[in-house]
């Protein structure tokens, strides 16, 4: 029952994210746009390129969707509104989202097309740049909560949200989450102006629809994760918990999508260099600061 309720709210959330995404890319705010696009994609042909790695090509969109959805399964929308409150929830979220990389590598290698392949391997570089910046800030969050349970992480922020408790961690995590969701300016694997769609470029019809759905779920999952880890999850005055979760998650998702409009795509060399030479030292500093705070504050 809870599962169905969560899935239903995820569906609504994903649809709204898709509306936001269509708005940021096309400039039109139309509620019906994603439905229209999805139906249109259903009606179009769905090609498999010749000499493709058929298994990879078929598996990639499904794997992307599945991993994003499994990631969402450990995120609480309200105190009891969670699919599985795993004891290692925060770790499981990482584990599920690690397969986004695998899905994109498959989508890149599968079609035997140059743009896609460059996109796929680019994303591996992107993962190497951001992965530590997902893991290390989560670590600091877990230090404060003394648990990997996502519900306890939310509960630990009752007094003070983590965005204020560890702002450095939030900034790093938010940027890394955007990179994981490959939204602009981190859209290196799909870059329209550089790779004409990249890993997404060879997908058509219903396969493209599934790929895009997976991407939307991924964005929603990461926005919800940001809310859970840093913005106090369902907590908030007056409104019921689920409403707070919804508002915060959509606001974070909109921020993620809009931020990319403001800046050009980042260069891969810079992404790697900044991630390692700036990001990791800062993330370690964040762990140290939180460590001191946790011991000093009651």
């Amino acid at each position, binding site marked *: 029952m809870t599962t169905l309720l969560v899935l239903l709210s995820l569906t609504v959330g994903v649809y709204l994210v898709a509306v936001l995404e269509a708005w940021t890319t096309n400039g039109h705010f139309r509620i019906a746009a994603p439905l229209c696009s999805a139906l249109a994609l259903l009606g179009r042909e769905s090609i498999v390129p010749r000499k493709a790695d058929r298994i990879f090509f078929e598996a990639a969109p499904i794997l992307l969707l599945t991993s994003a959805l499994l990631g969402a399964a450990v995120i609480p929308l309200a105190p009891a509104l969670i699919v599985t409150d*795993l004891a290692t929830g925060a770790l*499981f979220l990482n584990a599920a989202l690690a397969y986004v990389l695998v899905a994109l590598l498959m989508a890149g290698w599968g079609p035997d097309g140059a743009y896609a392949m460059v996109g796929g391997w680019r994303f591996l570089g992107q*993962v190497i740049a951001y992965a530590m910046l997902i893991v290390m800030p989560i670590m600091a969050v877990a230090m404060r909560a003394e*648990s*990997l349970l996502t519900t306890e992480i939310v509960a630990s922020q009752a007094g003070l949200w983590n965005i204020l408790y560890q702002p450095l961690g939030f900034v790093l995590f938010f940027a890394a989450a955007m990179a994981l969701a490959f939204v602009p300016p981190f859209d290196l694997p799909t870059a329209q102006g550089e790779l004409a769609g990249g890993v997404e470029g060879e997908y058509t019809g219903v396969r493209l629809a599934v790929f895009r759905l997976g991407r939307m779920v991924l964005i929603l999952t990461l926005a919800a994760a940001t809310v859970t880890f840093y913005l106090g999850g369902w907590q908030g005055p007056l409104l019921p918990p689920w409403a707070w979760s919804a508002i915060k998650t959509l606001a974070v998702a909109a921020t993620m999508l809009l931020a990319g409009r403001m800046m050009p795509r980042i260069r891969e060399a810079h992404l790697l260099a900044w991630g390692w030479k700036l990001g990791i030292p800062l993330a370690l500093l964040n762990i140290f600061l939180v460590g001191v705070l946790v011991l000093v504050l009651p």
Partner: protein
Amino acid sequence: MISAQGLFIAFFGLAAVCFGVAVFRTSSMVRSALALLFSQTAIGAMFLSMQAEFLGVLQIMMMATEMSIMAIFMVMFMMDPGGLGKMEMTHQKGLSLISGSIAFMAAVAVAVFVDWGPGGASPPDAARQTRELGIELLGRSMLIFETAGITILTAMIAATAVAIQPLKRSGDR
């Protein structure tokens, strides 16, 4: 419940073996690397079926990135990474068959003949597993933990020294 658990362990075990076989049956390097990844994922799922949650999830997480990195190195340094040549990836079949069967029999023998002691009543719950692991790391096994740090450092230095051309000119290139 126990039987269902056993069923899942067997299922994922079998999946791990099948993917393991696929590693060598395919001629595409990327397929091979990702087959190994899914073999490891299946082992992670096996751990989960055995209620070793932390270990299972960790296995599932770490293998994804590490095997993908292995995939890129295989694509960089192996001939014909696309498997267009249908290259046979098995070598020295006779020797491998013999050593493989010996190892298999040894493993079975160990599994059957070793006294594993009385089975635990039921494993601690997942949250406690993680905590106890943490306490273990900071207590009894601290030295092992720090040694692991040194080992990883050694690996980093070795990898860098082997793979990276040192900066020649002053400034970067």
